[in-house]
């Protein structure tokens, strides 16, 4: 039966693909369930300037394509279908994993499904996704040429969304609920120095208004409790991510949804390891995810070969 693998890696961001590079080079028969949206969050970015080895930066999608090729070069089998379910009840494995309409078996599993956009959850948002509400400025910014947009958030992603939009939009208002950003100093500096970007601290989005598309946003200043409406054409959400952990029945998670890591990237089920943003609530960087992927792959390899 050719559906039995030494290791099944679920996810194809920096964590999953780095894990795959290590497991295949260790001569483990490796299956990567990459998902239809393979490549993870970096597929939704432009230039990545903090991944070591690229002094001039590298486009996020290019970096992911390169990582994928590197894993494939050593024999990783990559499936561009979504993970459906897994039977992780038997401690020590083997584990049955369903992807698309097929079933596979792995002696060990690495979960590296990362995290997805966290939306605001305010009235008017869900139905306008794709009609002015977006979480991907590099994908959608050109539709807002000469328009007025709002970006919500205070981290590096929010800074990047705002900066990408400056190439197209007329005015960008960066809205953040706290009184300072948590983004890196270099990104904050670029945002603050850009004349197209206006910053509103202590401000929350209450509602997105408009008939078919985004027309206005209702804002609340959480210091003065003053509400105001601003006419806009687009709203970009960059307030963080939610770990994609719901589908992994039997694997322990914390109250925020992050998978609980035991020592050395193990989960509560022996033989199932974890890497990247699915467990990492602290760093959430491409390079840390890649590092976690490497560590989980080595741990899985040692566990499989009884070396540890």
């Amino acid at each position, binding site marked *: 039966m050719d559906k039995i693998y030494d290791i099944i890696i679920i996810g194809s961001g920096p964590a999953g693909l780095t894990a795959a590079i290590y497991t295949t080079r260790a001569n483990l028969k490796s299956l990567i369930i990459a998902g*239809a*949206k*393979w*490549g993870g969050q970096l*597929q939704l970015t432009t230039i990545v300037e903090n991944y070591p080895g690229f002094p001039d930066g590298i486009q*996020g999608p290019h970096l992911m394509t390169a990582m994928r090729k590197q894993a494939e070069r050593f024999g990783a089998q990559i499936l561009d279908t979504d993970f459906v379910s897994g039977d992780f009840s038997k401690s020590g494995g083997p584990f049955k994993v369903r992807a698309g309409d097929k079933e596979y078996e792995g002696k060990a599993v690495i979960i590296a499904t990362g995290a997805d956009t966290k939306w605001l959850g305010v009235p008017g948002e869900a139905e306008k996704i794709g009609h002015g509400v977006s979480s991907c400025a590099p*994908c959608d910014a050109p*539709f807002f040429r000469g328009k007025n947009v709002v970006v919500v958030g205070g981290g590096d992603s929010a800074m990047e969304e705002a900066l990408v939009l400056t190439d197209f939009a007329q005015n960008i208002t960066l809205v953040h609920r706290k009184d300072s950003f948590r983004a890196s100093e270099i990104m904050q500096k670029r945002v603050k120095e850009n004349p197209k970007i206006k910053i509103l601290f202590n401000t929350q989005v209450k509602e997105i208004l408009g008939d078919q598309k985004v027309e206005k946003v209702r804002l609340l200043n959480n210091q003065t409790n003053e509400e105001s409406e601003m006419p806009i054409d687009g709203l970009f959400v960059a307030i963080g991510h939610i770990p994609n952990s719901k589908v992994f029945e039997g694997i322990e998670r914390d109250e925020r949804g992050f998978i609980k890591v035991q020592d050395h990237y193990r989960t509560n089920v022996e033989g199932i390891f974890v890497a990247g943003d699915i467990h990492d609530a602290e760093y959430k960087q491409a390079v840390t995810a890649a590092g976690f992927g490497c560590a989980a792959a080595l741990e899985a390899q040692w566990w499989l070969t009884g070396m540890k």
Partner: protein
Amino acid sequence: MADLTFTDQNFEGEVLKSESPVLVDFWAAWCAPCRIVDPIVHELAGEYGEKLKVGKLNVDENPNVSQAYSVMSIPTIMLFKKGQPVKSVIGAQSKENFKKAIDEVLAS
């Protein structure tokens, strides 16, 4: 049916006046998720054969159609039946999700 290229010019004839339902893949060269969807759309074209007309529309080169249907995020896959947009799927999705949308439109 093989992948076609839709434009502002041929949209009425190829899509709106089409006998069979039509899948339009709104895309642009700068859009990374569009590159993920591209091979899926190609496979769908092969699988549905004569039942579904499939084509791509470049949003940069064809602003009129894109604006007429309020496309503000890509990839957007829009399904047309008898000249009307009846369903749209926004963002990169699994092939199964696209098939579900197509099957619903074909069955309606």
